[in-house]
């Protein structure tokens, strides 16, 4: 309870400061928070929610899901077999440092402006941390655990599942990074090539000098990111409960 209080204290103070400091603002580009809050209600609790927020979230979910599946799949192969690791190491090192947004102009030409392009951009950027951390995790699974599985002649499928399960702490760390990247790429791809979505809307408001509305979009993206991070934490806490117990850390409070 005390922790919750501390966690809320600073945001409340900052928002209050912003509210008070901006109350008399006549600067067009920094309108009073009050105005922004009103715009927030008008803009987002309307048709825009289904027209712009849901498509954004859908693309985010699709891109992240593809990154998760592909990253874990390829990461497993790379982590499990040394040959795969040796073969792919230079390629992985190259793509890992290649910023995903550079794909946007390429895909724009190749695939067009549809949802596919944005989903591909999100997936292409988010896949790397998941892939690399899965490979790390799988290659570091305890030898005794693997020998136990081999000696008891567990079926190959079961043994692979055990490897992945044992690597979940690392996979989860990669997925957390990937989630942050996904949100960035969702917004960027929508800003550059879209007819709907959160990123598109923010740019649209900016270009039409609807400054309070633009600010409300920025706030909403922040809130969406925060909620997604918290949801991720919730899932992670469940999936990794054994890991905290096993490594002797207590239940952490938020």
């Amino acid at each position, binding site marked *: 309870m005390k922790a919750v209080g501390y966690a809320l204290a600073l945001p409340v103070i900052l928002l209050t400061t912003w509210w008070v400091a901006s109350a008399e603002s006549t600067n067009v580009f920094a309108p009073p928070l009050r105005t922004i809050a009103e715009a927030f209600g008008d803009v987002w609790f309307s048709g825009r929610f289904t027209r712009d927020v849901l498509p954004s979230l859908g693309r985010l979910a699709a891109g992240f899901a593809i990154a998760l599946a592909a990253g874990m799949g390829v990461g497993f192969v790379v982590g499990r077999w040394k040959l795969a690791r040796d073969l792919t190491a230079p390629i992985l090192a190259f793509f890992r440092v290649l910023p995903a947004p550079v794909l946007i102009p390429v895909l724009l030409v190749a695939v067009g402006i549809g949802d596919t392009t944005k989903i591909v951009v999100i997936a292409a950027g988010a896949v790397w941390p998941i892939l690399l951390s899965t490979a790390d995790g799988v290659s570091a699974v*305890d*030898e*005794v*655990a693997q*020998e*136990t599985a*081999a*000696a*008891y*002649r*567990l*079926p190959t499928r*079961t043994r692979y599942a*055990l490897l992945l*399960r*044992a690597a*979940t702490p690392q996979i989860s760390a990669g997925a957390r990074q990937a989630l942050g990247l996904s949100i960035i790429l969702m917004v960027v791809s929508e800003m550059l090539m879209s007819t709907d979505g959160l990123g598109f809307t923010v740019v649209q408001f900016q270009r039409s000098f609807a400054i309070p509305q633009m600010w409300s979009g920025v706030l909403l993206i922040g809130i969406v990111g925060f909620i997604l991070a918290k949801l991720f934490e919730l899932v992670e806490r469940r999936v990794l409960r*054994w*890991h905290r*117990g*096993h490594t*002797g850390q207590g239940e952490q409070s938020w």
Partner: protein
Amino acid sequence: MVSDHALLQITGLHKSYRARERSVDVLTAIDLSVRDGEFATVVGTSGCGKTTLLKIVAGLVPATSGEVLFDGSPVTGPPPGLGVVFQEYGRSLFPWKTVRQNVELPLRRNGSSRAQRRGTVDEALDAVGLGKAADAYPWQLSGGMQQRVAIARAVAYRPRLLLMDEPFSAVDAQTRGDLEDLVAGLRRRFRMTVLFVTHDIDEAVYLGDRVIVLGASVSGVQADIPVTLPADRDQITTRSSADFGRLRAEVWAQVRRTPLEKA
């Protein structure tokens, strides 16, 4: 209880590892057999290849040359009917699975029904005194209890041969005594054949029907000493008996002899 049938037959086993251009011999000229129903203990100084021997028998490590026959068939990978208990119980149990799930995992293969498996698991957990901890996670248990889980997993598997690699090295002395008696009892109850590796000479004598002494630094089996103690053993009376003292002295002498002979 012990039959003449050799369940495990090792002939001329040799193992060397390649390390930076030169090969290092770990085991040479090991001839050894374990009969059905026998409790054979293997002792030797550290670095004599006890654990390597066990891993070769388990089919986890290939031999460089020589033959290992398990129930008449050459071992090329982990053979069916083999149970293992490792020293590192914390790493051998799967921490995201409950005690029950850990014990049940190897049983899923053999086509038994869910209810049958449950019965087998419950029996094994009761046999090691963990009936009440079935739904706990391994990391919620003490080290000794975790090793009991690993033993229950082996027992539930009903192995033809149980391999134990220094299983009690990481627990305190009293727990160790309890676990030794537990294993001795389980072996009688489930008529198990056991190959038990340890560096503790007293433990080897206390548990074994036979103590096999591995020579330090590549000299094959140094000695094979039958343990002429009554089948029913007890931590206090057995360990203080004159026969026990004589046997442990004999094993000690054999373990000690090796480096002197080489020099």
